């Protein structure tokens, strides 16, 4: 079944597994998410489910159009809205709550999050260029080298790796193993790290590239 949950990154810690190994985990608050709208083929031209999420301890003012949209669908105003595509959405109904119950320990998930912003960075940090020698009069330290050819083609090729803004981009980490689900706290523990700062918004969904069935490890 296709679904997604909005949530936030809480932080990292570690747990001990059955064989007493130390497992690094990221603590993720996921949901509860309210279904705010069902999009149908007849009306919107595609089938999807729109969900809303109110992160704990976030009390941002909500815009009037947002409040109006939620009111029209008969749900409380939500701080964040997002949607996921699904071929059949008969089982969803506006007002329904999606919680971490849908995940199981041992299952694999994907996490979509925004990476930490690094600002304007040079090619060494941004593209892992090697740079030049530090001394012996090289005069070529952290520069990008040649940017292209001469009269032909007369311009720098597209996608040439250059300095620029780095980070603050949406990135997906695939196939993270769910170590533990704590339904009463709306929290799951996933193995490994995920992008972004603590407290930043993210999306958790069952792994797209999982093999058939739940709990495939």
């Amino acid at each position, binding site marked *: 079944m296709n679904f997604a949950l909005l949530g936030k990154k*809480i*932080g990292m*810690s*570690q*747990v*001990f597994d059955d064989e*007493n190994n*130390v497992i690094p985990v990221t*603590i993720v608050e996921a949901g509860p998410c309210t279904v705010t709208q069902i999009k149908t083929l007849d009306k919107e031209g595609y089938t999807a489910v729109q969900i809303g999420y109110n992160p704990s301890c976030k009390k941002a003012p909500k815009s009037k159009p947002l409040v109006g949209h939620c009111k029209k669908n008969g749900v409380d105003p939500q701080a964040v809205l997002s949607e996921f595509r699904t071929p059949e959405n008969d089982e969803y109904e506006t007002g329904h709550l999606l919680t971490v119950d849908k995940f199981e320990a041992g299952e694999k998930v994907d996490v979509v999050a925004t990476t930490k912003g690094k600002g304007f960075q040079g090619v060494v940090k941004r593209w892992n260029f090697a740079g030049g020698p530090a001394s012996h009069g090289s005069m070529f330290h952290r520069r990008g080298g040649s940017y292209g050819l001469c009269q032909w083609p007369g311009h720098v090729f597209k996608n040439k790796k250059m300095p620029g803004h780095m980070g603050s981009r949406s990135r997906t980490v695939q196939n993270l193993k769910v170590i533990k689900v*704590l339904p009463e*706290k709306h*929290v799951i*523990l996933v193995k490994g790290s995920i992008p972004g700062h*603590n407290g930043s918004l993210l999306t958790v969904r069952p792994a797209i590239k999982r093999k058939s069935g739940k709990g495939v490890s």
Partner: protein
Amino acid sequence: MKPIVEEITQQDIKEDRDHFKVGDEVRVHVRVREGDKERIQIFKGIVIARKGRGVEETFTVRRIASGVGVERVFPVHSPLIAKVDVDRDSVTMRARMYYIRDRIGKGATKVKERRLVERANK
């Protein structure tokens, strides 16, 4: 640390693991699995550091094994550690005893012992 992180890791934390400190000479009882048999292996040495907090806390034990300095880092709350015996209490002037790595001979294993009187007053 965030309260929720503390709450989640609470169950893994062992209460009886704060009786040793940096400078103590300890015997760490480590559970070793060999096939399906389990036995206890003892690692004896001086605690030269305790780092981190909560469930992530670790401690480093240094010993001289056949003339070579050996250091092992254990997670304080690891279930693999059966128990930690303190053989010798000591007084240290440092939180991390890294200076002991540069010592050769007798000084490499010697730490100022806490006086018996002091221990009685404790």
